[in-house]
């Protein structure tokens, strides 16, 4: 099925909004000294990206679970590698 331009546009807007929300959540819960708007969608969260550490994964997983009711299991920790992958995971799993 081919999506109409309107559907595609509204889906993109929803995605953009979710990305913004997750960035704000990230900055708030991990007390990052970064403007959420400055975080790129493809920016790695760990290492050279936002420089999160392994202990931050737990806080991030808790925040996502509380905010969206989405669990990040041990097999799904790849979804914490970048903001886009995290938002993909939230979109795919939230009810």
């Amino acid at each position: 099925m081919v999506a109409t331009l309107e559907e595609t546009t509204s889906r993109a807007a929803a995605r953009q909004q979710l990305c913004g929300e997750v960035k704000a959540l990230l900055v708030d819960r991990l007390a990052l000294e970064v403007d959420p708007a400055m975080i790129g969608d493809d920016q790695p969260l760990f290492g050279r990206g936002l420089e999160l550490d392994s202990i931050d994964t737990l806080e991030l997983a808790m925040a996502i679970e509380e905010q969206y009711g989405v669990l990040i299991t041990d097999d799904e920790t790849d979804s914490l590698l970048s903001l886009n992958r995290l938002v993909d995971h939230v979109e795919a799993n939230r009810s």
Partner: protein
Amino acid sequence: MTASVVPVVPVQPLPGGRGDSVVLTADEIARLLPHRYPFFMLDRVTALVPGVSAEALKNVSAADTILAGHFPGRMIYPGVLLVECVAQLAAVIYGTAAAQRAGGDLVGDVSHRVGYLAEIRQAKFLKPVVPGDQVVFKATSGTRVGALISVTGQASVGRDVVMTARLAVTEREEPA
């Protein structure tokens, strides 16, 4: 019974008739934890849902050597040790779950599983704890990612909450 947590573990009477809700005695706690004097903190576990939550008691005594130095003439039980009590209670929560998985019993020799205190977040010390206080600790285990486990804990004396904290602790996996 003041517990807000429903114990699923049957309460056992202590020898000598002290019957009030003892789930684990100090000796049983010592089988679950590697900690020993002077860093063995909890006197009794009074409610327990293995893998989920627990409550414990600690009696603070002027005989505790730490109080000789903290502080001379003004004994206050150190706040950091209240945090440690919650961390040790967390080890009881996941230790008893591991013991049950391994053999069905609540208490087993699982002290090798105790890992590290990985994070202390949002610790608040609301009121000083002094000799004569009986501190009630409550801990609940939350989200788990890999070996990292989130724990929320609080300590109270009587009706007063004296400390709240969120921690991350680690559990060491069984050797392959």
